[in-house]
C-alpha cells in the first residue's frame, strides 16, 4: 500500500487542467479557419478547393451580388482554402472551441458586389477580384503603353473581350494558317 502511494506521488498528476486552463497545442495545429472579409476578393478558389463543400459561393448575376459562406459544421480543417487563397484572406487559427447550439451560429457569410462590363454593362466578375488583378498587373511591371490596353480589356466581360480583341488577333490567325482562313 505504502509502495503504491509512493509510486503515485512520484508519477504526479497526469490529467490536464483543461477547461480551467488553456491546453497546450502542438505546432502546426489546424483550428478554426479565420476569415478576413476585407482581404477576400470573392474569386471562389477556396470553394473549388474545399473537399467537403463547407465553403460555398452563390452568384446572382441579376442583382450583381456574390455571397460567400462558410459552414464550420462541415469543415474538416484540411487547410486547402488557406493553401489556395491568393490574398491570404483565410488562415487556420488555433481556436477549437466550436460547440454551438444552432447551425446558424456555425455560419460565416459575406456579400460582395460584382463588376459590370464597361461595354455591355452585364455583371461578370467580383469587383474586388478585378481590382486585385489590375494591381497584380502593375506589380508585374507591364510597360505603361501596354498596360492601358490590357486594363481596358480586363474591364470588359469575356464575351465583349472576345469581340474587341478579334481585329488584333485576326491577322495573327491568318498568318498561322497561311491566309487559308
Amino acid at each position, binding site marked *: 500500500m505504502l509502495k503504491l502511494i509512493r509510486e503515485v506521488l512520484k508519477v504526479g498528476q497526469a490529467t490536464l487542467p*483543461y477547461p480551467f486552463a488553456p491546453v497546450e497545442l502542438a505546432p502546426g495545429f489546424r483550428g478554426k479557419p479565420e476569415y478576413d472579409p476585407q482581404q477576400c476578393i470573392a474569386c471562389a478558389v477556396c470553394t473549388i478547393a474545399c473537399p467537403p463543400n463547407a465553403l460555398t459561393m452563390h452568384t446572382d448575376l441579376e442583382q450583381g451580388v456574390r455571397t460567400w459562406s462558410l459552414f464550420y459544421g462541415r469543415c474538416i480543417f484540411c487547410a486547402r482554402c488557406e493553401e489556395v487563397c491568393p490574398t491570404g484572406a483565410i488562415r487556420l487559427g488555433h481556436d477549437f472551441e*466550436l*460547440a*454551438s447550439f444552432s447551425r446558424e451560429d456555425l455560419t460565416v457569410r*459575406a456579400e460582395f458586389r460584382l463588376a459590370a462590363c464597361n461595354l455591355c454593362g452585364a455583371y461578370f466578375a467580383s469587383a474586388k477580384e478585378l481590382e486585385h488583378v489590375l494591381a497584380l498587373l502593375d506589380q508585374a*511591371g507591364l510597360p505603361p503603353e501596354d498596360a492601358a490596353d490590357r486594363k481596358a480589356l480586363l474591364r470588359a466581360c469575356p464575351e465583349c473581350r472576345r469581340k474587341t480583341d478579334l481585329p488584333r488577333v485576326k491577322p495573327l490567325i491568318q498568318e498561322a494558317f497561311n491566309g487559308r482562313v
Partner: protein
Amino acid sequence: MAEYDIKTDSAYAIRPDEAVDRLKGALLKDIQRSCYVYRVDCGGCNGCEIEIFAAITPIFDAERFGIKVVSSPRHADVLVYTGAVTRSMRVPALRAYHAAPEPKVCVAYGACGCSGGIFHDLYCVWGGADKILPIDLYIPGCPPTPPATIHGFAVALGLLNQKMKASYHLQQDDEHPQLLHPQLPLDLRIQVERAARRMAGYWHGRRIADVFLAMIKNGDPLKLSSTLQEYLAAQGDPRLSEIMHRLEEVYLAWLADH
C-alpha cells in the same frame, strides 16, 4: 419495430412535443454534472470514437465532470451521434433514440454528425444526424479533439458559454485587398513560393516561403545569410534548413538574372 419515414430532409426529423421540451430545458438547467452518455455510430470512420475514448482517458478525464460513457441507450441522458447517417445505420440510430428515456439531449458530433462532412452528397447518406433527429448541440471537428469534446459537453451542460456566433459581412466602399508582399517583385515571389511548395507541400511551403520573403523584405540583402543561419539555428530542424538553403539559392539565381 416501428415504421420510419425515409425522407432525407431535416423538415421530416423527429420533433419532441412541448412537454418533452420543457423537461429537456429543466434537464439542461439542473443536471450540470453526472450525465450518462451513449455513443451512437451512424456510419462514421471511427475517428470520432477514438477521440471520444481519448477524452475519457486519464489525460483528459471527462469523468471528473461526471460525464460517463454507458453501454446502453436505456441508461443515457445524452446521445452522441457520430457519422454521416448512412442508409443502413439510420434505423439503428432511430431505435437508439427511442430506447433512451425522455428527456434526453442529442449531440451531433464531428463534421459528419453535424452535416454529413465530406460524405454529405453521397447517394447512401442522409447527411447529418439533424436530418432525422432533434439535435441540441453541434460539436464540429474532423474529428473534434478531446479538449473540443470536453468543451462541447461543458457547453451542453451549461458550465461554459458558447463561443461561436453567426457573422455576416456586407462589402463596404473602402475595402481594398492588399497584395501579398507588395514590396517584392512578383516573379521573385512566385519563384520562391513555387520552390518552397514543391519541397514542403502546399501548406507548409506557403508558410516557409512567407518567412523567407519577410527576411528578404525586412533585412539587408547582404546580411541574408547570417539572418537565415540565426533563424535556422533557433528552429533546429534539418528539413527546414535544407529547404531554406535551397530557397536562398533560388533568390541568388534571381538576383544574378536581374
